[in-house]
């Protein structure tokens, strides 16, 4: 469905994406990466807004830039907020459906249906400027699906939403994944994980990892993490850590023992029990940074060849 072949996109001297080669088949895909990683550039290339500086992009077998045949089958929800002051969600979605090539009557019907799907019927006739960010986000989503595209591309669709709205939209998007192909870009792993999507991790413009959610979680678990333990007997604890095994390195900083290990969760479980058995006095246990940012940092170091 989507194929990028050694694609590089430069903005002057700034790298957007760097030598990315990937094939995404039908189904749901998550694009993970911190801010500035190149997710939006990647999506811009896929949705035909940008041309690659090097390499080739194919969507549905054709290049998407300026290609009406491809654009007709894509629905895009960008990250940027909708700042059109006077337009209502109904007018906006109807406008987009008309631009997708539908007749006036069909556009109206589809717009109403899409707004109903995203739960915006009650606010459909209010100017966008009077809506909350979450409601504007729903309007954007409605615009992306109203013309029934084969591929829906969502860039940070859950940004700025409160937890309830976020949960509702995740449920909605998960439902779409069953009837059409989906690409969701986000910097939050748990949001994308919940879609049961294949994941691709992008950092510094490079595609650093890809696979199923379980594979990525396994990668996360397999990456070395640092556990910090404050102990009254740091040297004894350091010795204990080596005896437990699976430890890459230990360093002592005052009363803190920092342990680098490939299996931080398992290590912590075992280390705490054995430390108590040996009469050591533990003050604090701080596990490795398991956030996506922490994982990103590990992946960057990995790709730079820096030992963990």
């Amino acid at each position, binding site marked *: 469905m989507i194929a990028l072949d050694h694609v590089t996109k430069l*903005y002057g001297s700034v790298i*957007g994406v760097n030598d990315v080669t990937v094939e995404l088949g039908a189904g749901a895909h998550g694009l993970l990466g911190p801010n500035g990683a190149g997710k*939006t*550039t990647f999506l*811009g290339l896929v*949705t*035909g*807004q*940008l*041309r690659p500086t090097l390499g080739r992009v194919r969507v549905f077998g054709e290049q998407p830039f*300026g290609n*009406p*045949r491809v*654009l*007709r089958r*894509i629905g*895009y929800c*960008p*990250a*940027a*907020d*909708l*700042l*059109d*002051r*006077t*337009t209502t969600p109904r*007018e906006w979605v109807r*406008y*987009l459906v*008309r*631009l*997708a*090539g*539908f*007749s006036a009557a*069909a556009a109206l019907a589809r717009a109403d249906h899409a707004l109903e799907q995203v739960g915006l019927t009650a606010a459909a006739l209010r100017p966008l400027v009077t809506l909350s960010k979450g409601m504007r986000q729903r309007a*954007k989503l409605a*615009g992306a699906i109203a013309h*029934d595209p084969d591929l829906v591309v969502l860039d940070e669709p859950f940004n700025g939403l409160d937890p309830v709205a976020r949960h509702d939209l995740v449920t909605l998007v998960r439902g779409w994944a069953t009837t059409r192909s989906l690409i969701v870009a986000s910097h939050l792993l748990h949001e994308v994980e919940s879609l049961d999507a294949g994941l691709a991790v992008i950092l510094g413009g490079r595609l650093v990892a890809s696979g199923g959610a379980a594979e990525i979680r396994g990668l996360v678990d397999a990456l070395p993490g640092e556990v910090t333990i404050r102990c009254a007997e740091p040297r004894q604890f350091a010795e204990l850590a080596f005896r437990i095994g699976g430890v890459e390195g230990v360093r002592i900083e005052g009363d803190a023992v920092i342990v680098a290990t490939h299996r931080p969760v398992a290590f912590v479980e075992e280390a705490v029990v054995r430390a108590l058995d040996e009469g050591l006095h533990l003050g604090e246990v701080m596990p490795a940074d398991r956030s996506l940012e922490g994982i990103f940092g590990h992946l960057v170091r990995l790709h730079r060849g820096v030992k963990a």
Partner: protein
Amino acid sequence: MSSDRTGLPAAVWTVAMFQLDRLLTWPRLVMAAVGVVFPAGVMLAAGRAARGGLTSDVQVALLYALIPEAVCMLGLLVTMCPAVADELERGTWAHVATRPNGRRALLVGTWLAAVIWTGMAAIVATALALAVTTIERPVAVGAMFAALVALSCVGRAALFAIPAVVLPKRALVASVGVGLVVEYLAGTIPALVNQATVSLRLRSLLVDWMGWKRKLPTEMQLFIDPQPAWLHVLAVAVLTTVLLAVAVAILDRRQFPPSDEV
């Protein structure tokens, strides 16, 4: 693909109607009202200043400077120039650019909306101005001005489409420069260069339709083209088509990085 799909013309019309809807805000309506009233106000003041000394021909000449030139140019600056910049600022560019024929429909649709909006305001301004002047044969003159307004709007909106796609963030200032250089500088050079300007065509049509050819001083004859009227209309149509085609070709190739959207 659904059987009720429509093509580029329908998309252009959709954009035009949408843009006209966006123009129906109080600030825009106030600006249009000022543009409508301005020529009548000036003509009224000029008539009183001259204490009846302004002949019908002089009044027509003044009205030409005010409406097909000033009002149309200013109206098109505010409606045509932000064709792309508006979309970037409102965060709507990505939505439109990812529609089939979205870019082309946006540009040509905005051009159409600019022509309709400005043209209507200029025609109302003409009617109002004629009501306060002592121009002979006001209905015939009004019809003539309607034609001149239509040609002015159509041609100059296409001219402003170029800076709108080349320099969207500075489109207004660029269009002022283009307008001055192309229409008011090149347009008054009695050489090949002014053949590609709307101002030469409008001036020539004015002189032709008012029957002023024999009354013009010799040195002023350099600033008009004595070709038949249909040729001037055709020239404006050709110029419009070429300018729009160039603008569309440029916009088709333009890329706006995500950071360009505010």
